[in-house]
């Protein structure tokens, strides 16, 4: 659908996602990009653009980290820049590369998403610093409480329960056991989720993503330049931004805080470009949701069901392998590993591996079409991408 400048992902390289990596940031970036190039069959001499995503500088404790990590991704002598849109950073970097390729600024790009939050000694305190210092930061807002404010509203509006969300978590953890790159590879049960430590009611430890580090790299090329090599063709993509103010979205006519208006709009556009009526028409859907409740918040925007029918859909066991419908998060998703600056790019990379048939143990047999979402900045930024094999 992208016309003459049709694009495809032709290579993926990822470090494992881990609580902590001992290597330096440039070393990790260099390794992931090297793997993505080997997977693509291209060399760095074939690359025109190097676009990097890195989320809050203070998590890594390094101001303007682009200075060090972009050269490690191959930027020397090329067009290069760093992108940051919170959780959507990695996919925003990929979209920037796609835009530049479509505009004719080259045939192939390296995109890398980076997360080094293990360098911070207090991650929640750093996350508090991302919120508005004038009106909101004094309330101690963190990424967990910000999410919990949505979860309780979903319980109140649509009747979600901790038990239903624990089933979502159980499925994500089960899928992650097939992914050697996942950080949590223990098949925690719903019962274990429901008895894990309460962080911010109603969110418990195992409803939430872990603290993760990792680097993901992809090689994107114009399909004409990709030749006949296996590729994940970009069939649709869209990104939409919302107001920062969460309180402005409470009871908003166009879409409430928990109705995820920006993902609804992005999905409508991306699915429309790809000729899909619903993301349920895909074989694989990687949902960028660092919490189980957040995954279910994406169901209506992705047109799996109406928002009020979400709890009933969860009760059917929707999204499991061999469940008959799309497989949700065969990688385990962000609940099993959420390196913030990389995680939205990982969703795209995992979808690419699935449609290329290169997903190893976590391969969904015969996967031809996959949908990846991206969510960032307290659900302020949303993306939706549709890939299919060439």
């Amino acid at each position, binding site marked *: 659908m992208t016309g003459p400048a049709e694009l495809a992902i032709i290579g993926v390289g990822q470090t494992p996602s881990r609580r902590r990596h001992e290597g330096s940031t440039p070393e990790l970036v260099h390794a992931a990009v090297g793997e993505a190039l080997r997977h693509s069959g291209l060399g760095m001499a074939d690359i025109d653009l190097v676009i990097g995503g890195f989320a809050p500088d203070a998590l890594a404790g390094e101001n303007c980290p682009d200075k060090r990590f972009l050269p490690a991704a191959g930027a020397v002598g090329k067009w290069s820049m760093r992108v940051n849109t919170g959780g959507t950073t990695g996919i925003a970097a990929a979209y920037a590369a796609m835009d530049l390729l479509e505009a004719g600024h080259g045939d192939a790009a390296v995109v890398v998403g980076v997360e080094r939050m293990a360098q911070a000694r207090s991650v929640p305190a750093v996350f508090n610093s991302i919120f508005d*210092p004038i009106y909101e930061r004094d309330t101690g807002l963190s990424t967990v409480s910000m999410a919990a404010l949505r979860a309780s509203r979903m319980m109140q509006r649509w009747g979600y329960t901790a038990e239903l969300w624990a089933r979502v978590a159980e499925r994500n953890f089960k899928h992650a056991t097939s992914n050697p790159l996942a950080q949590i590879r223990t098949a925690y049960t719903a019962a274990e989720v429901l008895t894990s430590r309460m962080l911010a009611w109603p*969110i418990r430890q195992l409803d939430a993503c872990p603290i993760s580090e990792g680097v993901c790299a992809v090689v994107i090329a114009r399909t004409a330049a990709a030749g006949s090599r296996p590729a994940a063709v970009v069939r649709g993509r869209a990104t939409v931004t919302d107001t920062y103010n969460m309180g402005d979205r409470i009871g908003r006519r166009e879409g409430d805080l928990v109705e995820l208006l920006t993902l609804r709009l992005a999905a409508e556009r991306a699915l429309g470009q790809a000729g899909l009526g619903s993301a349920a028409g895909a074989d694989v859907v990687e949902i960028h949701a660092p919490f189980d409740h957040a995954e279910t918040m994406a169901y209506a925007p992705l047109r799996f069901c109406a928002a009020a029918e979400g709890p009933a859909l969860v009760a059917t066991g929707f999204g499991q392998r061999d469940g008959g419908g799309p497989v949700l998060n065969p990688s385990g998703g962000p609940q099993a590993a959420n390196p913030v600056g990389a995680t939205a790019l990982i969703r795209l990379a995992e979808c690419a591996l699935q449609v290329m048939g290169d997903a190893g143990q976590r391969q969904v047999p015969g996967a031809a079409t996959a949908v990846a979402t991206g969510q960032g900045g307290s659900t302020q930024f949303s993306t939706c991408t549709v890939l299919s094999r060439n």
Partner: protein
Amino acid sequence: MDEPAGGSVPPLTIDGHWAFDYQYFAGAAASRFFAGLAARRIMGSRCPQCARVLVPARAFCDACFVETTDWVQVSPHGTLETFTILTTSFPGLPEPPLVVGYVALEGASTAVLNFVDGIDLTDPDAAGARLLQRPRVTARFRDSCQGRITDFVFTLDEPA
């Protein structure tokens, strides 16, 4: 993929510290909003295009991309639209247990985030079930205002 920094020497870590002091410029709208709090008034600003009353007050409406015009005093009474109960302590963050929530005040088109006081939190599930009923709340001002959002807190009209 192997760790790139392998080899026989143990990986080195170097301690760092990042503690810079700042002063945040609140801007014209927030300065006026906080001055209102000192006079025990919660003020919103109205968008001339969509007519929403934005609380806390903003200089412009980001949905319509126009400057707000009128200033409107809103009621201290409202509804707790959504909330969370902070139950785990994290370094650098307020000490739990605490409730924070978004409250839609009468006369406002948006909700404002603040602490909600006066709730028995010994059983978080029971407190959560009570707060899911969207209880009525009222803003109570602290004795001395410092020009911070925490110059007021919300309390339940019917104690839990």
